[in-house]
């Protein structure tokens, strides 16, 4: 199909699909009228059942914890996939950062950026830690915390050089952290199985005060492992991409003309 023809064919099909979709949406109860019962039931029982006051975290790490296990492994598989696709191949060598930078219009990191980035690293670390460890009380959790933690490591890159970043996150260590995070989550589930309970049963004491940091049993623990996994996965993905930015290829089509 030529681009022009394709556009018109698509518009015709999309008009039909949009009409069809709207026809279905018209059958909903209407915006602002969530009918329940799933969410209402959970809102009613979650606090007394799990001692977590953040019900979304209770759903994520308890009622639908198995979904979250799958979700963590999606990220895990994606990080492994990125590493697979971007692995160093024969005929590729690493150029020095300056060498590569000379060929780009991206200006080198200025001192101001460096200082701001350094200043932000500490708070980002603290905030990531806070988010990952307060899943049960406030709108936060392992995922958001993990992403912010990963951002802290990326800030280190911005502040310094790639080499420093690499020193902070050697692939083997990141791999290990990621494995502990993802595997730890699964292991918590299996611990329940070993006690004769259902997979991912919350077998730890729930604490006495709803919303306290130590409350809600495995929710906090799972959130912590998720934070580890997510942070490591993102650091891995970003470092693979950075690694690519520094790779030179000796030969091949579309190679560098310099």
């Amino acid at each position, binding site marked *: 199909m030529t681009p022009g023809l394709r556009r018109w064919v698509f518009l015709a099909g999309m008009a039909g699909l949009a009409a069809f979709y709207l026809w279905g949406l018209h059958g909903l109860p209407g915006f602002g009228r969530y009918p329940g019962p799933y969410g209402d039931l959970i809102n009613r029982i979650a606090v007394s059942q799990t001692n977590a006051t*953040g019900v*979304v*975290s209770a759903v994520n790490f308890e009622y639908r914890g198995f979904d979250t296990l799958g979700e963590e492994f999606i990220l895990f598989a994606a990080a492994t996939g990125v590493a697979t696709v971007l692995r160093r191949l024969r005929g590729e060598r690493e150029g020095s950062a300056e060498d*590569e930078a000379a*060929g*780009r*219009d*991206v200006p080198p990191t200025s001192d101001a950026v460096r200082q701001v980035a350094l200043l932000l690293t500490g708070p980002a670390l603290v905030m990531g830690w806070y*988010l990952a460890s307060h899943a049960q009380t406030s*709108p*936060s*959790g392992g*995922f*958001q915390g993990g*992403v*912010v933690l*990963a*951002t802290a490591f*990326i800030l280190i890159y911005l502040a310094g050089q790639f080499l420093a970043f690499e020193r902070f996150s050697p692939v083997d260590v990141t791999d290990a952290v990621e494995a502990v995070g993802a595997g730890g989550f699964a292991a918590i589930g299996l611990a329940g199985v070993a006690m004769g309970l259902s997979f991912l049963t919350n077998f730890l004491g729930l604490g006495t005060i709803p919303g306290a940091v130590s409350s809600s049993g495995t929710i906090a623990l799972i959130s912590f492992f998720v934070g580890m996994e997510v942070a490591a996965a*993102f650091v891995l*993905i*970003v470092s693979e*991409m*950075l690694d*690519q*930015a520094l790779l030179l290829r000796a030969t091949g089509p*579309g190679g*560098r*003309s*310099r």
Partner: protein
Amino acid sequence: MTLAVVTPYTVPAGLMDVLQAVLLVLVALGATAVVLTRAPVRQVIVLSVYGLLLALLFLAFQAPDVTLSELTVGAIVLPLLLLLGLAKVRSREK
């Protein structure tokens, strides 16, 4: 269901409606802008703004958890990854 409970987080219903409507319009415009921006680097910036708009909309939908994720992922991490990818591609186009 009648909702008479007033909490510290209750926003007057009329105001909330207006807020949501405005944000929905902005999100629709943002999506269109992302698609119609054909210059890659500029598109990443538009995408980042779009992520921000989505995050605000989710806040108006009473979903602070999702707001936080959308902010960290949609407005920061994904644009960063995309920029890294573009840097790689552009360095080779030199």
